[in-house]
């Protein structure tokens, strides 16, 4: 089986936020929740880098480890999904996740959170594939349709890659080899000092 992964190539990402929009539209993500976001580092200064981030579908997922009702499960493709019918909105996955993936859509009285929502790698959830119930709770199940996550498919510079880890690693390795000798390479500053 494939091990699904996301990889964002910070040398290519141009912060167009198309991945964010594509995700929101494809999955009908609730108001206030963005399953994916683009973070710009050193914004506006030389060396600025952008990187798109969402749920990383960890092998040893902290959210799954701390969930009191054990509502998370990992698919055969290594995608971390959760069951909103079990979720009690306790917020523990939010405390534990390093990437800020779990979010809570509702703002009810007394700070009640509602069901957690996060990136599904466009793989839906426990209900039958592409059923109405699945779409309403989790969004589109593109994986069941043989497609890849729309954020990655949508990426104009192909910075964001989503799919089988081996294939993504292969693509990225080829890119790094082609870029070889560029000033970012480690040790370049030592070998060719500007002054």
């Amino acid at each position, binding site marked *: 089986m494939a091990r699904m992964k996301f990889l964002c190539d910070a040398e290519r990402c141009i*912060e167009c*936020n198309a991945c*964010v929009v594509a995700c929101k539209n494809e999955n009908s993500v609730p108001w*206030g*929740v*963005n399953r994916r*976001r*683009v*973070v*710009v*580092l*050193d*914004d506006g200064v030389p*060396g600025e*880098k952008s*990187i798109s*981030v969402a749920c990383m579908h960890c092998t040893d997922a*902290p959210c799954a*480890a*701390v*969930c*009191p*009702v*054990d*509502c998370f499960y990992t698919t055969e493709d290594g995608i971390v999904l959760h*069951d909103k*019918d*079990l*979720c*009690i*909105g*306790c*917020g*523990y996955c*939010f*405390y*534990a*996740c*390093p*990437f*800020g993936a779990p*979010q*809570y*859509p*509702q*703002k009810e009285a*007394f*700070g*009640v*959170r509602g069901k957690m929502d996060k990136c599904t790698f466009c793989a839906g959830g426990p209900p039958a594939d592409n059923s109405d119930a699945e779409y309403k709770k989790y969004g589109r199940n593109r994986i069941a349709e043989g497609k890849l996550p729309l954020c990655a498919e949508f990426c104009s510079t192909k910075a964001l890659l989503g799919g089988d880890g081996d294939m993504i690693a292969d693509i990225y390795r080829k890119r790094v080899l082609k870029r070889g000798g560029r000033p*970012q390479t*480690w*040790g370049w*500053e*030592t070998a060719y000092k500007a002054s």
Partner: protein
Amino acid sequence: MSKAETPNRGRRARYRRIMFWFIAIIVFGAMALPMGSYVYTGIQQAQAQSVKDTNPRANYWRAVRDGQGGYSAVTGTSMEGEVVNTETSMLINNGGQNWRQVRNGLIANYGGWFLFLVLIAILLFFAKVGRVPVEHGLSGQKVQRWNAFERFVHWVTAISFIILAISGLSLLFGRAVLIPLMGYPGFAAYAGLAKGLHNFVGPWLFTPGVALMIILWIRHNIPNAEDIQWFTQGGGFVGKGKHPHAGRMNGGEKIWFWFICTVGVAAIVSGFFMDFPNWWSASREGMQLASVVHAITGILWIALWFGHAYLGTIGTEGSLEGMTTGRVDVNWAKQHHDRWYEEVQSTSHEQGRDATTEVRGQPA
């Protein structure tokens, strides 16, 4: 002869001295100079290292890994639906892994074992000491110990505490203990209810109850010298000596009181912090800390409550009726709270009435 030999001998001695110093300088030079080059290169290296650039690219991502944020056009929501930008602009939040390890490791493991061992210890204590009887038997004479309002506050708080303890422990240990029994949907339904109940009962019933009890009873809980004596005599449990003196509250009850005033208040404050994060836009780190404080203080509270509930029910004859009916047997009062009984008697004598009442139909 002697005149010719003397300068000769003096010259030879000088030659020896010169030779010795030559050798010493050569040996020193032969050993020290190469060492000196080591020292020289060492200093050079140290200086070079201090000014040498570390790999800027690696440092860049290392900073991100350590929690360096950036800018995000995506305004996310905080956990409570408030629009914030600090949260979305972070790539990696490091606190979560620590929180996970503290909660799932330290608290869930040691906390569980701690509560279990406290229960075992109480059971062993009961098996060895048994129920502490009223020494001179029940007299049938009763004296008022807790008034109706005190009892009402106590039982509202007590029932709230039991609800909070069961629901709280369910959220911490339910995944390991209850899911195998109830199944996933069953436990999720129960846990949702438990969470809702915990979040409601805690602030609206339990907290006012605890606050009222602190206000009602603080003047009886000021520590005094007799409390030390009470502890050295093991509260009258250990050994068959005379029961130690005590006022309205004995040393053990004062410990329970001041435990609630400190650890208990910490549990309540951290609980409020987590229950109403939208009131003070709590940060992720704040919630993690509050959750750890709440779990630890909650477990300690439950452990000490085991002792409180044991002593108030099966551990001591005649204690429970004080909190249910409000009145205790006079002999119980003389045994456990002699100073308080004397005080009640003297004040009632001053007012010209009898504090005790005869209860008919009860064994004298």
